[in-house]
């Protein structure tokens, strides 16, 4: 799963120095998490006969994060470029389509919010159909049907096969 080096898009290979401003965001993220980890640990109490105590590890890790964040910011300023992960279905030659990602996140949040209320059979079906639609599928009726079959089949598989009753929700008594 790690990054491999085949076929970077041509423009990334150009020797022209470009700064990836997004990386400053990542560096800031690392520093903030590091500082929060240190602050969080400073409120812990050290027990008896525990020479290391609960604080040392968070202190070391937090410091490490801050350090890596600062080094990354320096490396970014000097033109260090990330190698975005390539893959079977990944086309890095086009700019990122964050709208699709947002739609997927919204679909997942909808699932989180409704799964206990509507039950897995319905929320799962909405999840499948919504995700397929976000990714560009335009066969909505078919996707909803496939989603319903998947969700109801998995409900029964978990209930009958594994003895785990997934939330039935509004379909309680029907399933």
């Amino acid at each position: 799963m790690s990054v491999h080096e085949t076929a970077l898009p041509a423009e990334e290979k150009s020797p022209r120095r470009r700064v990836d401003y997004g990386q400053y965001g990542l560096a800031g993220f690392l520093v903030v998490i590091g500082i929060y980890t240190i602050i969080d640990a400073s409120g812990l109490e050290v027990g008896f006969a525990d020479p290391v105590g609960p604080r040392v590890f968070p202190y070391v890790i937090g410091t490490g994060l801050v350090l890596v964040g600062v080094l990354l910011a320096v490396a970014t300023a000097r033109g260090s470029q990330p190698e975005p992960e390539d893959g079977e279905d990944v086309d890095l030659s086009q700019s990122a389509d964050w709208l699709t990602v947002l739609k997927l996140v919204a679909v997942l949040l909808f699932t989180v919010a409704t799964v206990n209320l509507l039950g897995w059979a319905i929320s799962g079906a909405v999840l499948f159909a919504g995700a397929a639609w976000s990714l560009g599928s335009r066969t909505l009726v078919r996707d909803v049907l496939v989603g319903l079959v998947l969700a109801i089949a998995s409900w029964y598989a978990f209930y009958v096969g594994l003895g785990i009753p997934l939330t039935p929700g509004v379909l309680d008594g029907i399933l």
Partner: protein
Amino acid sequence: MENFQLLLGGLESALTPMNLLYAAIGVLLGTFVGVLPGIGPAMAIALLLPVTYRLEPTSAFIMFAGLYYGGMYGGSTTSILLNTPGESASVMTALEGNRMARAGRGAQALATAAVGSFVAGTIGTILVAFFSPALADVAVELGAPSYFALMVLALVMTTTVLGTSALRGFAALFLGLTIGLVGLDLNTGQPRLTFGVTQLVDRLDIVVVAVGIFALGEALWVAAHLRRKPAHVIPVGRPWLSRDDWGRSWKPWLRGTAFGFPFGALPAGGAEIPTFLSYLTERKLSKRGDFGRGAIEGVAGPEAANNASAAGMFVPMLALGLPVTATAAVMLSALQGYGITPGPQLMTDHADLVWTLLASLLIGNTLLLVLNLPLAPLWARLLRIPRPQLYAGILFFACLGAYATNLDPFDIGLLLAFGLLGLMMRRFGLPVLPLILGVILGPLMETKLREALTISGGDYMTLLSEPLAVVIYVLIALFILGRPFIARLRARAEQSADPDEFEDEKELSKS
């Protein structure tokens, strides 16, 4: 020969009709999920883990073994037929394998991969059966300082050897260690980094973290960069090997196994290095000069190395309780789900389970060969599933897996959070493995460190009190110094493998 008897005993308890059925289901499911683009073996196992819940341990292990080898084989099918390897260990397979497929020899490439995987997996599993008990006997004597050093070694190796940027490796590692902090401190019972959320107090489930980072992260990353024109899939017939192919394949299989197993067994970060060494060796030894145009040796060797290293990973996992790959980390957490504490005592306390697991690996491996050779054309067709539905399905099953454990929507939210983290890591080129190992090894390291220092009364020099620990720290220093050399060797090999694709990015990214 005692080990051999024990292995036979394990085979006996594993070989019931019901268990064979579980193994077959495991192999089929594993291959099915592994073939799907964008899913590697670790992710396949993490996604399919819920299926094994509520099974008794023996049946669950059998299914697990099937899932594992099935997922691995599925991954190589994808890289041969699509030429875009889903994981670093398949990069070398894809080099020659895809050229063979394009030259109309896809069936032979799949066959040599399958038989090579079988040979390497079988030899590897038998080696595990012979090495793990001996190592466990030694490991029982090891104290906390040696364990601590071993874990530092595993983290440093995966962070610096893999990938091209050590800085990004360390960023991933420290993020993983931070995630590992979340929950109650084991010694004092105080919550750390829980933000007052009750669900976070009893530590994060490694499966939710793994599925979030691997499956959801990958799906979101693909969503941002979806190839509008699907990659070209090369149609393939039933795999078979001619007499000549057998003659050319068997030596690379054995050499690949010899490379793969030791690297898998060392805490050195899995299959990337041995597959690469195997590829180099086969190219050097080849007399036909058809490397670069689809040489079967270039598929046979790296595939065997990949599978042997996958088997080798069981040695530290079973004998020391140390996971050195993402797959091992996920498996270990499944073991813990059965109330089994990993560590050197595992071989004595749960001997029957361990031998059943090893026997299951042999069974899973054999079934893989029997089932997958005839089914290969069917698997190849899976590569044409329309992408929106494919990734919608991955999201569906990832959420199902996270939700089914506790029936708490919070877990789906957590999954989403880790999915977004996975997305960010892919965008910024942070390697995934150091993060996963950080999550699982961080708490173990802290426990061992505190154990060592409680015994020594707070004297940090105790960390150097065992000879093995000192040796390991020296090794770590040597590896860090040797890193530029390894990187240069790699760059040169890839460059000559395909001058068009590789160029000298390696040299650039190192600076």
